[in-house]
């Protein structure tokens, strides 16, 4: 059927078909400009993770510094010197003027309770801060280093660095629209009205989010500009978890621009070097450009966004498209050299038909590889899977239409003199490999075995971790800032522990005369001022002390911090329920918000422990740590008193990563089986399918071994490498065996078939692999470390796949002789 399409349609009317295709694509092309990048934290989370819902509830119940940026301040002079304090004041004042900034807290504004220690009653009336009263600086310094709320959190333990907290306005509209959208999405059956409302909400949400992104980015730019002015007076870094998203988007955007330009240049150079003809440089690039235009406009049309994870998809698509076209070119040239007098049309026809089957199978095995991404539960990864599958399917169709039609419209060229090699002289890489294959006795198998051992042992060392700080190069602003916060100011990734006390069941009241008191007192027994019972305080202290004892945790803040200060102020006696109740009622609302609201929610009977994990700790194993904390707390707290639950970014990202890892491992096996079945269809031989899969195990396992030995963690960026490695790796095998089969049919001799294959498909494989390796090498220029890993690992896979298919595969075929005589 394919023959007919080509004979009667494509090759008959090349000009019209080509123009039709180009018109369709270019008219669609407008949508390519609508493509957007989305790097919000939301997209990187599990869609239906109950932990996310809980996290959102937590941020509703507790006012926390959720929307906050941190400026690390390391002055040249002493922290409490007049100059330094003036700098902090001026800086704070300037920052406060920004529209998105609600307030600025620093060592100037936080209440000083111990400098000097006063009676509690006096403190409530008259809270002192560095800015509103004359405070003894020695005492103040002591307090900052002693007060559990400030030490190792607001100020570093050596008092050289302090934090300036830039509190931003909460985005109420965002949350409102988000909730609305999620509620409507959760409904199984929606009425027409609800359907319309959902569409409207999604649109409004997206519009608002896009607007906010611009505002937030501008905010960060403004803050950085302000900080730049003070860099002579102190070392200042802007940090905070909110920064990460913004910076990643910036890097992704700049990376995309770099790929765009450099990649094309590299390809031009390589293609010229290999083929030395203009058309063989222009044609592949043209086809690639058209394919990418087609896919980006499709994405733009459907409103899909590129996320941090899928930002590499253009590079991937480019590479696979080139590989398709290169195989076509090499085969065409081979045919041209063999039958120089044949009409162009016939040459093209043969090329296209010969290459259709292996290319088709190469593409569907790659799609099978990407399908493992589709079954993960993480939106951007699913999207990457779909994007890639759609993208390379489009590339296949476009290549097989544009290549024949355009070539037919161009004048036929003379066959280039193939650099012929004298026997005995090695003049190309493929020749060199051929020699190894023919000469070798055991070295190939021994090396393969050694590699497998390396891979298996390495794979056992694989770690699944997600360290934000390690996403960035050490000399970037964001790394330096995060490092200071991580090491000096209490850690980076927030982890909340929410303690929910069990409610005392309300007993029914009777009308007994004695129970008149019962009724009277049971009426207001749940008033806020009575919440602070000894039992609760003891539980909170227990949990707080436990959390502080963990090395991996930086700072711990909770009501216990306040209680400890209170005890000190109370002449080292613990504050009892009455004292706490009195303090609560008489504390001004401003200070209630500062020291109580983040840690206590009386209405819901909850206490919150705000901790931060030291991200840069290389021995940190996040999943294990979280499980340990949960089980330790379950043991520590009597379930009749309270239950605990972990929350916030640390938990959410860990859940996402673990789920991703799970799904990848589960589907990897499935993908291999699917590819195996495809091989059976393609080669019509079980034996060959086994050999084909077997040979490919080597490069794939090498990747994991490499990652294991070099401590490259499997995280959200690198975990997609498995799917890609399988998808791309098997392409060479398909092309080789397909060609080998053909050669063997002709010569009925394995050695001759190997030689013939090396001189034909061997070249094609070499060119495509080298082009792809060079293409991915530019990812090493990225500012995002996961992208660099991605580039390196893909290079490794391509290189290993090339060697496996050009050395090991022929050897195996020669030794095991799978074809029937």
């Amino acid at each position: 059927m394919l023959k007919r399409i080509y004979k009667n349609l494509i090759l008959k009317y090349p000009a019209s078909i080509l123009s039709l295709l180009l018109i369709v694509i270019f008219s669609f092309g407008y949508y390519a400009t609508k493509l957007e990048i989305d790097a919000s934290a939301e997209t990187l989370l599990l869609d239906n993770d109950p932990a996310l819902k809980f996290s959102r509830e937590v941020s509703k119940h507790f006012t926390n510094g959720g929307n906050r940026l941190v400026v690390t301040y390391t002055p040249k002079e002493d922290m409490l010197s007049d100059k330094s304090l003036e700098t902090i004041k001026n800086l704070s004042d300037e920052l406060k003027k920004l529209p998105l900034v609600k307030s600025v807290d620093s060592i100037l504004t936080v209440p000083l309770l111990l400098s000097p220690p006063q009676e509690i009653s006096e403190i409530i009336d008259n809270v002192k801060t560095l800015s509103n009263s004359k405070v003894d600086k020695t005492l103040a310094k002591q307090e900052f280093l002693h007060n559990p709320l400030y030490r190792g959190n607001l100020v570093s333990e050596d008092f050289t660095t302090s934090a300036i907290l830039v509190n931003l306005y909460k985005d109420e509209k965002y949350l409102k629209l988000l909730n609305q959208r999620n509620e409507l999405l959760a409904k199984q059956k929606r009425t027409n009205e609800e359907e319309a409302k959902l569409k409207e909400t999604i649109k409004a949400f997206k519009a608002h989010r896009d607007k906010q992104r611009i505002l937030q980015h501008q905010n960060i730019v403004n803050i950085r500009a302000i900080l730049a002015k003070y860099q002579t007076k102190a070392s200042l870094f802007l940090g905070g978890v909110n920064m990460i998203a913004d910076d990643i988007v910036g890097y992704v955007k700049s990376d995309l621009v770099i790929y765009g330009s450099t990649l094309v240049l590299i390809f031009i150079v390589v293609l010229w070097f290999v083929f030395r003809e203009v058309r063989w440089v222009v044609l592949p690039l043209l086809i690639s450009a058209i394919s990418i235009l087609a896919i980006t406009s499709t994405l733009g049309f459907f409103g899909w966004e590129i996320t941090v994870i899928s930002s590499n998809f253009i590079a991937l698509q480019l590479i696979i498209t080139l590989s398709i076209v290169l195989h076509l070119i090499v085969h065409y040239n081979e045919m041209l050299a063999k039958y120089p007098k044949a009409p162009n049309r016939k040459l093209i026809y043969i090329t296209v038909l010969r290459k259709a089957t292996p290319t088709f199978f190469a593409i569907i095995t790659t799609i099978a590889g990407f399908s493992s991404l589709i079954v993960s539960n993480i939106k951007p990864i699913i999207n990457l899977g779909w994007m890639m599958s759609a993208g390379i399917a489009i590339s296949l169709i476009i290549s097989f239409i544009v290549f024949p039609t355009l070539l037919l419209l161009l004048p036929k060229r003379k066959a280039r003199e193939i650099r012929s090699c004298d026997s005995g002289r090695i003049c190309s890489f493929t020749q060199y490999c051929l020699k190894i294959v023919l000469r070798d006795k055991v070295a190939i198998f021994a090396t393969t075995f050694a590699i497998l051992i390396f891979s298996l042992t390495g794979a056992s060392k694989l770690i699944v971790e997600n360290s934000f700080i390690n996403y960035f190069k050490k000399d970037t602003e964001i790394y330096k800032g995060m490092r200071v916060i991580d090491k000096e100011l209490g850690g980076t990734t927030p982890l909340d522990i929410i303690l929910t006390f069990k409610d005392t069941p309300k007993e029914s009241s009777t009308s007994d005369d004695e129970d008149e008191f019962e009724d009277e007192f049971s009426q207001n027994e749940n008033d806020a001022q009575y919440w602070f019972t000894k039992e609760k305080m003891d539980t909170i202290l227990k949990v707080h002390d436990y959390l502080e004892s963990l090395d991996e945790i930086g700072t711990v803040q909770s009501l216990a911090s306040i209680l400890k200060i209170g005890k000190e102020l109370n002449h080292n006696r613990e504050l009892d329920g009455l004292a706490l109740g009195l303090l609560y009622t008489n504390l001004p609302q401003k200070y209630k918000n500062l020291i109580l609201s983040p840690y206590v929610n009386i209405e819901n009977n909850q206490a919150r422990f705000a901790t931060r994990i030291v991200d840069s700790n290389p021995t940190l194993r996040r999943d294990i740590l979280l499980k340990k904390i949960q089980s330790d707390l379950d043991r520590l707290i009597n379930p009749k008193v309270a239950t605990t639950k972990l929350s916030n970014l640390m938990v959410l990202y860990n859940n996402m990563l673990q789920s991703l890892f799970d799904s990848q491992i589960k589907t990897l096996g499935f993908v291999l089986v699917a590819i195996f079945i495809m091989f059976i269809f393609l080669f019509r031989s079980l034996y060959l399918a086994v050999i084909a899969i077997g040979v490919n195990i080597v490069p794939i396992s090498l990747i994991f071994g490499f990652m294991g030995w070099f401590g490259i963690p499997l995280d959200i960026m690198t975990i997609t490498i498995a799917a890609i490695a399988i998808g791309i790796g098997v392409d060479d095998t398909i092309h080789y065996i397909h060609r080998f089969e053909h050669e063997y049919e002709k010569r009925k001799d394995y050695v001759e078939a190997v030689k013939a294959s090396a001189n034909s498909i061997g070249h094609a494989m070499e060119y495509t692999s080298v082009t792809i390796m060079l293409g991915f090498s530019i990812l090493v220029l990225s500012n995002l470390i996961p992208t660099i890993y991605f580039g390196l690992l893909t290079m490794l896979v391509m290189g290993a796949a090339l060697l496996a298919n050009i050395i090991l595969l022929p050897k195996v075929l020669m030794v095991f002789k799978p074809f029937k005589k």
Partner: protein
Amino acid sequence: MLKRTILIVLLLCSSLFAVEEGNIKSEMESKIATITQILQNKSLSLESKKEQIAPTVDNLFDYKTMAKISLGRVWKKLSSSQQEQFTKKFEQKLKNSYFEKLELYTDQKVVVKELEKPKANRIYLHSEIIGTEESYEVIYKFYKVKNSNDWKIYDVDITGVSIIQTYRKQFSEFLKTKSFDELLASL
């Protein structure tokens, strides 16, 4: 003759150990005056201040009822010896913590204000401690003892925080996971 004597003695006793409605305000004013005087006496040690103040308040505070309210429904399940033990210990605890708070007293003025009668058998006496920056309201809650004209204090509310309610909450949470004997030991 004997009957009369007994009656007179009883009358005398009752007037020593309680207060009648009409006398609440004046009683309290004089008692508060006495207490502030003792507290302002710099020559007395804290211990002797406590010793002098204690009897002044003893006949007005109904420790048994306070103990009962603070235990809630658990009280009924106790034996009378347990109830007695608890009342004793509770009284001690109240006095100790009350005196602890008195340490904060320097020389503020205490003013007795109005009487509020929310129910037939409840009277709230509002008083005010006038500090340097702010004033604090203290409400003494009296109830009418059954079958008599006596009124006793069953709760004190300091700026909206009821002392008995605080203990009530405390004990009920304690007893969620521990026994009564442990509670007794902790007091």
